[in-house]
């Protein structure tokens, strides 16, 4: 299995010296879905931002490698890297309510980058956008193309953002908690839609979430992140049957399943957390792919 | 929002020190004018007209900053001019503040008819060009220190009324005000004990700003020959005279201009600095 994206020993540090990520390594296979699981604050969104080159000003990559297919992103000049990312990767953001520009109609928000960055003809870009909107099950795509974001519901907007992410047929899409901001009923539909689109387009997908349940539904492989450190990289099935790290085991136990609906009440035991902290101090990382 | 405010806060120390320093110097200069001034600010000496400042050729001892076309000492006139400027700043600033802030507080807290009337008047006032209004008022009231102070109060009370009204409205909508009212406190006492302290930092900043503006208005009125009286030493009067002879004697314009510039800048920076320091949220 060739890797579409491989991150090796990535470290991110705040200007004041606080380390956000410590030697993170993970791989996303071509056309595969990789889940990145962790609690909020674990730094999982920062991995996505580091790959896309949109880290906040106060943060710097202080070590490691990000390879996109054969291309070493860290070795590229910032400008070239930006256009390269624009052509080859895309982001499905967390909050559909704030991720569309309120002063622009939907149509141009999907088509402009195809024309500006990829040099498509305007008519082609428009036709492509209409097709994609139909594909993400939006009724009356022509009307939606003319709408402003505030005229559409949150679920609709997330569908549009998904369509927009697939528009240029990128090789990798990073979905940053794409369902967290949505209603529970809409969450399921969107999740299904993302999985469907990914399968049809054969795009590699890095799925960032705090929800193990979501990961179990859509991912092939996954990483568990805690306090800026990858504790475990695993095949999906293997992880759910034979989790290796004590934190992973505790995490699984805390996830509600149909057989154990009260699992949500369980907590990661303090002893496990202490153990993880100990591990991190000793730079002990376990890779199991 | 938060981090942006923090950014502005960084140079606060230097800002307060510099502006406070200049204003202290100015107050001392004004108070000690009779001791410091080398000459009578009104004394003319036609044989010593348009003398340059001390570092230039042709300068005379005893006239460190030169003389104007009538041979009056620029430094002495500036020192005495500072007295007038500061009196106008303090008196006009304070009166404007008292009247404007009171009306704004009433409009913002009581709302209803008081607010409608006050806001309407403010709207009408905002439709006047302020400088023209001031000149018109001086034409009506006649020149003189009192007239200038009255004119400044009349044209500028709206600045306080507008800002304080908006602040008082925001504060009134807060829960702590409701709880004060529920606890049986009267409206007037709630206004004074709950609203006023929270609006005070803003009022303070506006007050120092207004002092700077008062100095400018006085200078503008002197410039169009409508200030205190033609022979009183005022910065505005000196600037007006310097403007006409700027090609022959630039120093008559430059020195009072620098003083005016620094004074106005210091008043407004002092206000901003004080506001940050006394703002209970930022402190």
């Amino acid at each position, binding site marked *: 299995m060739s890797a579409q994206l491989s991150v090796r020993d990535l470290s991110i540090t705040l200007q004041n010296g606080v380390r956000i990520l410590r030697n993170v390594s993970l791989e996303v296979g071509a056309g595969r879905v990789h889940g990145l699981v962790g609690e909020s604050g674990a730094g999982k969104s920062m991995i996505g931002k580091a790959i896309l080159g949109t880290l906040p000003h106060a943060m710097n990559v202080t070590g490691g490698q990000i390879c996109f297919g054969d291309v070493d992103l860290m070795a590229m000049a910032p400008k070239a890297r*930006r256009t390269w990312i624009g052509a080859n990767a895309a*982001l499905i953001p967390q909050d559909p309510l704030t991720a569309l520009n309120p002063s622009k109609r939907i149509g141009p928000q999907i088509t402009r980058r195809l024309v500006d*960055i990829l040099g498509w003809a305007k008519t082609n870009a428009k036709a492509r956008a209409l097709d994609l909107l139909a594909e993400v099950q939006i009724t009356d795509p022509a009307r939606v193309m003319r709408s402003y974001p505030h005229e559409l519901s949150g679920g609709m907007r997330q569908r549009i953002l998904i369509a927009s992410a697939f528009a240029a047929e990128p090789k990798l899409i990073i979905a940053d908690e794409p369902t967290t901001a949505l209603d529970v009923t809409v969450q399921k539909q969107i999740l299904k839609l993302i999985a469907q689109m990914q399968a049809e387009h054969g795009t590699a997908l890095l799925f960032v979430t705090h929800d193990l349940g979501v990961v179990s539904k859509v991912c092939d492989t996954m990483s568990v992140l805690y306090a800026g450190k990858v504790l475990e990289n695993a095949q999906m099935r293997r992880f759910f049957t034979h989790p290796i790290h004590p934190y992973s085991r505790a995490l699984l136990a805390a996830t509600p399943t149909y057989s154990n609906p009260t699992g949500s009440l369980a907590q990661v035991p303090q002893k496990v957390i202490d153990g993880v902290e100990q591990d991190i101090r000793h730079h002990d990382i376990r890779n199991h792919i | 929002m938060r981090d942006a405010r923090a950014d502005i806060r960084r140079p606060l120390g230097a800002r307060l020190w510099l502006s406070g320093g200049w204003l202290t110097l100015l107050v001392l200069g004004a108070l000690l004018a009779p001791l410091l001034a080398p000459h009578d600010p009104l004394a003319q000496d036609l044989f010593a007209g348009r003398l340059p400042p001390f570092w230039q050729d042709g300068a005379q001892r005893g006239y460190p900053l030169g003389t104007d076309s009538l041979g009056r000492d620029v430094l002495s006139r500036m020192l005495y001019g500072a007295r007038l400027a500061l009196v106008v700043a303090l008196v006009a600033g304070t009166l404007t503040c008292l009247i404007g802030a009171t009306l704004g507080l009433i409009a913002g807290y009581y709302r209803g008819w008081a607010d409608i009337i006050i806001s*309407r008047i403010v709207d009408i006032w905002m439709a006047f060009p302020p400088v023209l209004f001031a000149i018109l008022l001086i034409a009506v009231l006649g020149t003189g220190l009192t007239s200038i102070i009255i004119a400044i109060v009349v044209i500028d009370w709206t600045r306080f009324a507008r800002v304080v009204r908006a602040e008082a409205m925001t504060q009134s909508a807060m829960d702590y005000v409701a709880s004060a009212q529920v606890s049986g406190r009267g409206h007037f006492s709630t206004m004074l004990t709950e609203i006023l302290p929270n609006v005070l930092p803003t009022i303070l900043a506006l007050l120092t700003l207004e002092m700077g503006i008062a100095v400018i208005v006085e200078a503008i009125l002197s410039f169009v020959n409508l200030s205190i009286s033609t022979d009183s030493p005022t910065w505005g009067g000196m600037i007006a005279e310097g*403007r006409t002879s700027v090609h022959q004697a630039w120093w008559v*314009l430059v020195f009072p201009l620098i003083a005016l510039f620094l004074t106005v800048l210091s008043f407004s920076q002092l206000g901003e600095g004080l506001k940050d320091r006394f703002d209970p949220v930022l402190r």
Partner: protein
Amino acid sequence: MNLLRVIFLRLATTFLTLFGVAVIVFFVIRVVPGNPIAMMLPPGATEADVARLQAQYGFDKSIPEQFFIWLGGVLQGDFGTSISTRQPVSELVLGRLPATLELSVVALLMACLIGGTLALTGTRMRGTRTEGAIDVSTGVALSVPDFLWGLVLILLFGVLWPVFHISGRISPSLDIDFTTNFYMFEALLRLRFDVLADLVGHMFMPALALAIPLAAIIGQLLKQSLKETMHLDYVALARTKGYSERHVITREALPNAILPTLTLVGVQFTFLIGGTVIIERLFSYEGLGNMAIDAVINRDLPLIQGIVLLFALLFTVVNLVVDMLYVVLNPRLRHA
């Protein structure tokens, strides 16, 4: 229906404001000491001459009576006759209005240009010394009013490095036969670039003096607003699309950041127009403001009334236009 109601209310308050201005000016200037008629007559005029002129200008009637006669005239477009020049006030005032409008609009454009550049540069240079320098200079520019900037400019570009004209609107030698009083506009249309250059040379300093404080306000506010917008998700998303930082700031963030600045610029533009009064005086620029000060000094009551009312009208029109622009530029309001 609701929109109509809003528009009606808005117009009603506008008229109320203008009426208020008219009343105040009218009554304030009737208190002006000194008999304006006496100044018009040659020495040795008889009592009868004075009485005849007073009757001609309506000064023999009671003040409220005078007010309603004047108001009736105004509603028919007749603002009375100037005492000092004996010309119709409307003619005098409309003759000077173009000069003031040109000055104000040029100043506004300069302010937007300078302020916008400062805000965009500051945003691109986040966290650098350039940003710090921009913050400090806008802080200073903002605290010092146009009058002082005018004097500073006179020293810089009139005395120290005399490249611009220090007074007037146009050099007499170049005063071609203009058909309108919009000299700059007309010179541009007639392609008289020599005249245009002369006009710019005269207008540069007064316009810049008016523009500096407003440029600082625009710079500060727009930069702040951009800073907040740059943190939003759609801006981050645009970055991943491969656009340059410049494109992200100007195309994605700016259109949304500009709205709060716009309302403020409207109010500030009325302040700028108010500032022309003293700036025109300072640069001997023949506009409304300069005429207004002369009118006050000459006790020319009808002229003062006309000018103040015109200023008030100008202010309210600017505010109306800004409110409409706000609705047009904001898609959320446009479709509401």
